């Protein structure tokens, strides 16, 4: 595209004087300047005026931000990682420190009260069983006075073992009751407990609760009783009374 001829007062002269023309535009203006001394004088005058104007304007005072404003900007540019660290420090300490603290307390507790964990381990299922029995009193183990024992173990020892297995007994009962809601009556199991505490034989002596008797029979075979004091086996007769309304 052919551009228009450059004349006096042309804005391309101003752009040329200020160095704002591209190469093509510069060449065009320079060609015109070569031919026209008046245009050269005009460009020179614009340049001189620009220099004066620049000097005058740049001498003006430069107001700056107030120190607190500058500080706010600079502090906003601080890495947030530090503040994040600070914010989550206590959470991190808690999450990492709590397990370590628990482990330390366990070790110290075991050293100070060596038997406590075992006593606790025995207590917890029993407590749970008692709660279950209390809330749904459908059956119970035999009382010590009802247990017939011949051998080195006492009825109290046998009952303590039964108490340890109340949850399993309850599970057997619930299953049998689910199948036969009318479940009622009595059943008696006989066990042969060796001197080492293991149950080597067991059988149903009397039962009005089919299903429950077999479940309990399986159960007692897995029990372990304490060792007898005279290294003799023990014969045990366990009567269970089944009373849904109890």
């Amino acid at each position: 595209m052919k551009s228009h001829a450059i004349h006096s007062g042309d804005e391309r002269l101003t752009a040329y004087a200020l160095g704002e023309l591209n190469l093509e535009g510069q060449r065009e203006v320079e060609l015109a300047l070569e031919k026209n001394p008046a245009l050269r004088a005009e460009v020179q005058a614009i340049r001189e005026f620009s220099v004066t104007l620049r000097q005058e304007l740049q001498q003006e005072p430069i107001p700056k931000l107030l120190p607190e404003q500058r500080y706010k900007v600079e502090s906003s540019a601080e890495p947030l990682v530090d503040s994040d660290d600070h914010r989550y420090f206590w959470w991190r300490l808690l999450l990492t420190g709590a397990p370590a603290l628990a482990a330390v307390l366990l070790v110290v507790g075991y050293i100070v009260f060596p038997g406590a964990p075992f006593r606790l381990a025995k207590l917890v299922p029993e407590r749970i069983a008692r709660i279950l029995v209390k809330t749904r009193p459908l059956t119970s183990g035999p009382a010590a006075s009802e247990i017939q024992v011949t051998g080195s173990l006492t009825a109290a020892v046998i009952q303590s073992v039964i108490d340890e297995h109340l949850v399993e007994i309850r599970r057997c009962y619930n299953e049998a009751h689910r199948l036969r809601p009318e479940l009622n009556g009595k059943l008696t199991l006989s066990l042969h407990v060796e001197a080492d505490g293991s149950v080597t034989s067991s059988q149903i002596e009397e039962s009005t609760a089919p299903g429950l008797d077999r479940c309990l029979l399986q159960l007692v075979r897995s029990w372990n009783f304490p060792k007898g004091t005279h290294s003799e086996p023990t014969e045990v007769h366990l009567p269970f009374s089944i009373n849904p309304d109890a």
Partner: protein
Amino acid sequence: MPPKRAAGDKAWIQGLLAKHEGPLTRYVSRLLGDVERAREVVQESFLRLLEAKRSDIDGHVTEWLFTVCRNRAIDLKRRDRRQLPLAEGVEIPAEESESPSAFLESAQKQRSLLHALTKLPANQREVIRLKFQEELSYREISRIMGLSESNVGYLIHTAIKTMREETKKEEIESGQRSKQPMAPQGGER
């Protein structure tokens, strides 16, 4: 979500503050006629700069800062006009008003060149300041003001032409005044 601060951000913003806080505050105080508000606008713009994505501003941070400051200043001026019913719809040229920014002009007010500048329309004054005070190119000015480059060239050309004529006229007038004989003191008897 604002970008996470990197370790080098503080040094980066300090460098930009050192380079631009003065020119920006001066520029905005000219637009608003209020140095204190100009400072607030500039501070706010730097805070916004920290929130901006670096990839969006790299290579043209100067333009970005001037543009954000300018837009904010225009918003404030519009709001002021709404709040002052008497001035509604009337543009108050900051350089002509007797505002707190007058201190900026006080030292140079007598100079004919700057006097000629105050007579220009607001948009011509702005391009002249951006070009000669802040040393920005036509392209940068066009982006800041939202104009075409040729429009910027025209405004600058017209402003220079007017100012040259105005200063020439003032020189002639002051020359004529100096040639006039002094009136006898005390008057005629």
